[in-house]
Structure formats: structure tokens, C-alpha cells
């Protein structure tokens, strides 16, 4: 009998092979999610746990810092992602034309991605320095008065966004470039025969063909940018006047400065829900026409 023979082929070695991975996976990924959920219904300061029901969730929207951080995170995500994707697509299309020096340009755009966020932040901290920083020096040269950048309530978030765009463009560019190389050249030849201009080729061949790549970058980009923390904590610590505090920065502050672990857990669950809802929405409305698989 075929079925009994098949059953015999099962053996338990498989479990041994996945065991080491699964132990770490269970302890450091699955358990934390469940703990977040459990702790979010409690008051917990690492010493005492007290069940307080939904109180933490109710407090979320009364907390002006948290509301502010949601707005900041939304603005940060929108502008960082929009500019990063536009610039990287433009750059990738240029780099795909086989111009002189392409490898050099490609490598140099990619370098900011390789260095750590800490190092990048340090360099930009120096560039944004109001008195001797290169940016104000340059502005002075063209006759614009210097700004306080990271210390200016109105400019701090924008300063962080500009740095982040610089940091992330190379990564997006590399992925777009790989996507461009999968577009079959006969499509361009066919449009050339139809007399399409350069712009029309990009508009009607390149951009539609890149749709799965764009979708992937968009979805992962929203999730990653929504969790922005490092630049903020290094450059401004959320200041000035909470102008740059973000959701993950709030979680960090509440958990490890104020030791309001239960409240921070509720914030974390809130982030998880937002991320999950956004992802589901993107998949529902974003990928109707094409089969897109996202790793």
C-alpha cells in the first residue's frame, strides 16, 4: 500500500535538525510576543506585577507624548520612504543605461548603507553643527543664514529625514537595479519600433514591470521606517520639545527610563497591530493584478 509506505518514510531526525533553531525562535521571538501581550494588561516595574485590565491601552491616547510620537512617526515614514523610493528609482534607471563609470557610481551610492547608523549619525551630527558644520558653511557661501537644524523644533525631524534618505537610498537602488535587469530587452525593442520616446519607455515599460519590486520595497519600507529609533536616540533623544520622538523611542523611554514596562508593552502591541493592519491592507489592495511574494 502506497500510503503506509509513505508513512514509514517519516523519521524523527528532522526534529533534531530544526531543534536548535526552534529553541532560539521560541524563546526570543514567539515568547516575547506573548509576553508583550500579557504584560500589556499589567502594571509591571520588573519587581511587582499587577493586573490592570485595559488601563494601559486607555492611557495611550491620553498620553500627549505618545500621540505626538505617532504623528512624528507617520511624517517620518511618509517623507523618508517617498523620497528614498523616488531617488533610488531614478538612480537605478540611470545606472542601468551602461554609462561610463557605472560600477564606481553604484558602489559609492551603496556605501552609506554598509556603515552603521551610529557612524552615519555622528558624521551628520557634525555636518548639522550650527557654528562650524559644513551645511551652514555652505549656506553662508550662497548667502543663506545658518539654521540650528537638529536643535530647531521645526527643522529637527526634517534633518533626520534627510539623513535617513541619504542612508537608505543605496539599498533601494541595488534592489531596483536587480529588478531592472530582469526586464526583457524585447519589450524595449518593441516600444522602440512603435516609436516610443525615452520617457514613454520608462513610463509604460520600466515602471509597470518594476511593480512587484516597488511593492516589496514599499511594504518592507513602511514597516522598517515605522520602527525608526536609532537616528532619533543618537541625534536628538526625541527633542527639541518632543519634535522628533517616535513610537519606538517612546517604548524605549517608557520601558527603560520610566520602568513602566506594562505601559511600554501596550505601546509595542499597538505598533504590532498597526504594522499588521498596514501589511494586510497593502496585500489586499496593492497586489491584486500581480503575484507578489514577499520574503
Amino acid at each position, binding site marked *: 500500500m502506497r500510503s503506509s509506505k509513505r508513512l514509514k*518514510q*517519516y*523519521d524523527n*531526525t*528532522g526534529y533534531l*535538525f*530544526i531543534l536548535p*533553531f*526552534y529553541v*532560539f*525562535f521560541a*524563546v526570543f*521571538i514567539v*515568547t*516575547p*510576543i506573548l*509576553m*508583550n501581550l500579557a*504584560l500589556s494588561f499589567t502594571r509591571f516595574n*520588573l519587581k511587582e506585577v499587577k493586573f490592570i485590565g485595559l488601563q494601559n491601552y486607555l492611557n495611550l491616547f491620553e498620553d500627549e507624548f505618545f500621540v505626538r510620537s505617532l504623528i512624528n512617526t507617520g511624517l517620518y515614514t511618509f517623507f523618508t520612504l517617498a523620497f528614498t523610493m523616488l531617488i533610488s528609482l531614478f538612480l537605478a534607471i*540611470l*545606472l542601468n*543605461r551602461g554609462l561610463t*563609470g557605472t560600477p564606481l*557610481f553604484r*558602489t559609492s*551610492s*551603496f*556605501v*552609506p548603507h554598509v*556603515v*552603521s*547608523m*551610529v*557612524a*552615519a549619525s*555622528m*558624521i*551628520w551630527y*557634525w555636518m548639522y553643527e550650527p*557654528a562650524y558644520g*559644513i551645511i551652514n558653511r555652505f549656506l553662508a557661501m550662497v548667502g543663506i543664514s545658518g539654521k540650528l537644524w537638529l536643535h530647531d523644533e521645526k527643522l529637527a525631524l526634517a534633518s533626520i529625514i534627510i539623513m535617513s534618505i*541619504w542612508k537608505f537610498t543605496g539599498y533601494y537602488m*541595488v*534592489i531596483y537595479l*536587480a*529588478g531592472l535587469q530582469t526586464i526583457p530587452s524585447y519589450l524595449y525593442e518593441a516600444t*522602440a519600433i512603435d516609436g516610443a520616446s525615452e520617457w514613454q519607455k520608462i513610463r509604460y515599460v520600466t515602471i509597470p514591470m518594476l511593480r512587484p*519590486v516597488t511593492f*516589496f520595497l514599499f511594504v518592507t519600507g513602511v514597516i522598517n521606517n515605522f520602527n525608526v*529609533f536609532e537616528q532619533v536616540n*543618537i541625534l536628538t533623544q526625541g527633542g527639541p520639545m518632543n519634535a522628533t520622538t517616535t513610537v519606538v523611542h517612546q*517604548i*524605549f523611554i517608557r*520601558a527603560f527610563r520610566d520602568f513602566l514596562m506594562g505601559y511600554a508593552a501596550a505601546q*509595542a502591541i499597538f*505598533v*504590532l497591530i498597526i504594522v*499588521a493592519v498596514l501589511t494586510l491592507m497593502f496585500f489586499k489592495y496593492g497586489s491584486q493584478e500581480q503575484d507578489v511574494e514577499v*520574503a
Partner: protein
Amino acid sequence: MPQYNRVANGIWVAVLIVISFIMIFPFILMLSTSLKNMAELQRPVFSIIPDVLRFDNYPKAMARGNWGLYFWNSIYVTFWSVVLSLLFNSMAGFAFARLRFRFRELLFIISLIGLMIPPQVNMLPIYVILKYVPFAGGNDWLGRGGLGWLNSYWGLIAPYVAGSFGVFLFRQFYLTFPRALDDAAVIDGMTARQRFMYIYLPLSKPVMASLVALKATATWNEYTWPLIVTMTTDMRTVQLALSLYKDEYTIEWELLMAATAVAIIPLLVIFFCAQRYFVEGIVTTGIKG
């Protein structure tokens, strides 16, 4: 490739030069600053080339804090995170691709949850878990009393070991191996362990190299987790030490930039030598998915 005209190409190359310059300039500025002194930095007229190359800024910067130890900590943590996670990931990937066992598909799907959880969300509970590891850091058998794995190498390494993405990538890679390979091995009487060690692992070099590049860069560059889990200066990693540099000492820009240069140069050297693997790793994550 369609024929483009010369003038247009010239303009596009110029645009590329400008963009690349913006990308690279901060690093040039970093090097230039690290070789100047304060008086030069505050001069009204800016020059990218220092008057004299003041290399002694580097030893001066390194004298602030125990940088030898920070490097050792970073190397140690990166090494073990990469080795353990790639070993465990490849084993799991092999099992999911080639071994038959009950609930295999279900267990595989569950393991993909790790791809969807932003690590920042889990940092709080992981902190709590590490604090209550029994018999560690002065804890009793219930995990009470001490620090557990907080402020320890294990605390820095353990949260990076799982890595669902690696499992996924190894599985996809092993699925492309011809079945005949396994059949031949089985006929020769090889066990699953032998097939993994003598056939699959040696043939994994391409995917290994990309994952090493990705994982090592990510661990080496990590800031948030060391910030949370370490407490004493002797446990600091390079990135954490660098991030605290500007807060703990009065800012001397030339020394801060020298320290920054020291922190990124090892990685940049590796990047330029093995650029292929860095790019391939990223492309596989983005395209093949």
C-alpha cells in the same frame, strides 16, 4: 541596448557624479576632520585638505575609553552570532527542504513569523526574559535575585541567533538541489547527518557568503540592543561606545570623527573586498523572496 545620444549621456553622467558625490562626501569630510585640529575647524574659511595631517588624533581618540576591549566585544559577539545562527539556520533549512517529518510544512510556516515581527517591538520582553535566566548572573533557580544574562556576552548574542530569514533562504536554496544527489547518498548508506555535513553544507558556499555578509554587518552595526542590555563600560560594543562618545566627553570634533573612522573602516575594507556578496545578499532578500 538602445542607442543614446552623446550629449544626453554627458548630462546623465554629470547627474550621477553629483549624486555619488553627495553619497561619498560625508565620509571625505569625516576623514578630513579627523586629521585637523580645533583651530583649523573653526577657521572662517573652510578647506577640505588639512594643513598638516594630524594622525595623532587617532591615538588620542582611542585613549578615551577602552577601545581595544570594545573592538574585542564587537568581534566576539559578531563572530558567535554569525556562526551559531548560520549553523542552526542551515540545519533547519536542510530539514525543511529534505527530511520528512510530521507537521513539517506547519512548522516551517510558523518559523516565518520571525520575518514579520519588527525586532524593536520585542526588545522589552527579551530584556525581561534575559533578566530571569536561572542560575546566571547571580540568579537563583527561579531566576530571581541577580541580573541573569543582562550585561553579558550571552545577552548580546542570544537574541540574534534565531533568524527566520536564514532558514527561509537555506530552504529555498536546498530545494534547488537535484533529488538524485540524495538518492545516491542514501544508496551509499549515508545518514541525514552525513548528507547534511558532506553534501549540503559544502555546496552552500554562495548562500552562506551572502548571509555571512548580511548577518555580520547587521550584528556589527547593531546599536539598540547593546544600548539596552549592557550596563557596564567593559561590555560596550564599538557602536555603543561611539554613540556615547559625544555625550560623555566635551565634543572635540576631530576626535569624534577619528573614532567614527576607526569604527567603520574595518567594515568598509571587508565591504570593498567582498562587495559581490553584500550586494547578492541584498538582492536575494529583495527579489527572489
